[in-house]
């Protein structure tokens, strides 16, 4: 009897404490950061929860970017939307088109009367996610940009200077030839081929990806990336493929395995892959530099654009809860938090203050090359070709370009035919997006 009494007392006590916990407003944050990144995300949420008493952020891992987005959409349709959802950069145009579903960040901040300074952000990071008149739509969180990695040991073996990375694509070709001649299995490979070789090659050489400022000016746009320089680049890589100067390693990040296993000597990959590549090869063997460029196209590189994901605020929750969302976004973009995130993950800091804080702490001396991403992004004032991309149905368009590039690597098509077809198929997807969102 007394046992029952005791346990019911305990139950009541627990209920009471649960109630006092729920007096805090809970903010749901759905994200796609697994593994080590997920732990860092949880730590950030904890840190915020300890810093104040009013709100409690619950960070929930929902799988891949696609799975997270699909889950958020399903939840929104069932009127159970999370407050914040992490969406990859290619989903930007589709998110913008979903009027009534998203709550633009500038508006969230203004409605909550939370101080917010657009100038604090790094240009291309901010620009990618803001309207043409400079209003921020979603909060940049994990941003990266493609950088150039090389294997110093393999360079040494091939008789190249291990501390001088190739600067131009011509240099890359020559280095690759020497690598292969010295017994290397592969000269060069690229991660996320469409992002690195088509989108970023364009920005890096100030070439348009699409009309109307890469889609920032409207949805009635046409793709433009089947230009002479990019046809030449792809054809050159296809020719390199014949003798392993270039090896195709698969879509998305799959080719990084070729770099970390020591097969390929050179790699263009996300700056966010730095710690993985260093862990795979050993830190002393890896060099990080800016992407190569083609001086015959542009005398000097422009700036690179970002990839990664941002945090979108969804509509459909009680107004008072968005005050907490605004507070949390301010916390996330603070210099200390950003610097910590940047140093732990290799993602780009989103504010200039965070980059400076990291530099002052001597981080870049200890991890040389980790500052390359920010340097590339801020190399020059961004032009309309290098500000970012705002392309509808972009996920599918990237798949189309991936497919057509694979047709080049397998020898089914030449570079010109493949890029022409990619543009044609991509334009059809754009028309579909345009009619759907009129």
């Amino acid at each position: 009897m007394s046992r029952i009494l005791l346990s019911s007392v305990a139950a009541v006590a627990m209920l009471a404490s649960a109630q006092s916990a729920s007096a805090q407003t809970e903010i749901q944050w759905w994200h796609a950061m697994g593994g080590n990144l997920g732990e860092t995300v949880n730590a950030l949420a904890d840190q915020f929860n300890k810093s104040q008493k009013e709100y409690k952020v619950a960070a929930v891992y929902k799988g891949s970017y696609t799975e997270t987005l699909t889950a958020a959409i399903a939840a929104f349709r069932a009127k159970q939307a999370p407050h914040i959802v992490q969406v990859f950069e290619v989903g930007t145009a589709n998110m913008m088109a979903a009027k009534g579903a998203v709550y633009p960040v500038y508006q969230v901040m203004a409605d909550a009367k939370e101080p917010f300074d657009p100038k604090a952000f790094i240009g291309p990071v901010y620009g990618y996610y803001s309207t043409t008149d400079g209003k921020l739509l979603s909060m940049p969180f994990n941003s990266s940009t493609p950088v150039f990695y090389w294997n110093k040991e393999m360079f040494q073996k091939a008789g190249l200077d291990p501390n001088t990375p190739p600067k131009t694509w011509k240099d890359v070709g020559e280095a690759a030839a020497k690598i292969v001649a010295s017994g290397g299995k592969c000269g060069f490979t690229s991660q996320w081929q469409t992002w690195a070789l088509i989108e970023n090659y364009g920005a890096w050489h100030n070439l348009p990806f699409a009309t109307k400022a890469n889609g920032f000016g409207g949805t009635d746009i046409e793709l433009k990336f089947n230009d002479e320089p990019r046809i030449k680049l792809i054809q050159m890589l296809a020719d390199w493929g014949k003798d392993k100067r270039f090896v195709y390693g698969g879509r998305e990040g799959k080719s990084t395995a070729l770099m970390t296993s020591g097969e390929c000597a050179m790699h263009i990959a996300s700056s966010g892959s730095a710690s993985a590549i260093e862990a795979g090869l050993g830190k002393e063997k890896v060099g990080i530099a800016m992407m190569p460029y083609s001086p015959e196209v542009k005398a000097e590189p422009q700036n690179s654009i970002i990839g990664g994901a941002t945090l979108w605020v969804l509509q459909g929750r009680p107004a008072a809860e968005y005050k907490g969302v605004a507070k949390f976004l301010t916390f996330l973009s603070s210099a200390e938090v950003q610097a910590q995130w940047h140093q732990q993950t290799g993602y780009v800091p989103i504010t200039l203050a965070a980059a400076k804080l990291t530099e002052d702490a001597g981080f870049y001396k200890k991890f040389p090359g980790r500052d390359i991403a920010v340097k590339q992004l801020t190399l020059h004032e961004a032009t309309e070709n290098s500000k970012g991309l705002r392309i509808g149905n972009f996920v599918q368009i990237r798949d189309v370009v991936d497919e057509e590039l694979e047709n080049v690597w397998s020898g089914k098509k030449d570079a010109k035919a493949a890029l022409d077809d990619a543009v044609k198929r991509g334009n059809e997807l754009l028309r579909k997006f345009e009619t759907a969102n009129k």
Partner: protein
Amino acid sequence: MEKRVTFNERWLPYFLVAPQIVITLVFFFWPSGQAIFQSVITEDAFGGNTKFVWFDNFVHLFSDPGYFDSVRLTVAFSAMVASLGLAISLLLAVMADRVIRGATFYKMILVWPYAVAPAVAGVLWGFLFNPSVGVVAWMLSAIGIEFNYVVNGNQALILVVIAAVWNQVSYNFLFFLAGLQSIPKSLIEAAAIDGAGPGRRFWDIAFPLLSPTGFFLLVVNIIYAFFDTFGVVSALTSGGPGQSTNILVYKVYNDGFRGQDLGGSSAQSVILMAIVILLTFVQFRFIERRVHY
């Protein structure tokens, strides 16, 4: 006289079949109805901006040459998966049926792959054939065959077929084995006494008597190849390289969940549904007649 079970209670039979009916309605008819509804509208991913567009989604599909490539590919793929899957499992079942010592052990080993989820099977085979670290790819390169499914479309298709067949062989095997064991021993023995060799006994007695099982498995395997191979494709190739493994069911997923194009994706599922209904109908109407029960 015919033996019939009769119910005196008027509602009891309905009550007894109700659970099955409810499950069918909720899990088959309702989603199918949703798919048909979605296929004639367009909307943004979050369900806003909904517009009724008649058959625009279908028109888009039929004006896309890539879609017909995918249809042709799916037909070829299903034919390969079903024929290879049935042939190999029949062979294995015949062998296992003759084994006397250790029969249970062999059967268990042969049934194992069925416990592996298609996506896991995909990863497994992908790892074996991985161009840089795969054991099989390494052995193939030792005998002069460059196997790189990441670049070579035909090799990618072969690999997907192998993985899909491997995953399904166990299921077929079980049915074939059961079929073989239910053939009366007296028939086989009588034929043996008449002087028929093992080959003759198989083709003239066992094979015709297996035809109901074979027919059932053919239907199941084609449906498997059409729908359940999604996990294998997703884990191995994501439809690539190019579009060489982009079969219809993967395209439905890719356009719907990656591309957030629910209208176009639903139109594709409606077509897929029609194809399977038609196939099953044809199989039961025309092929079943030639089957001995």
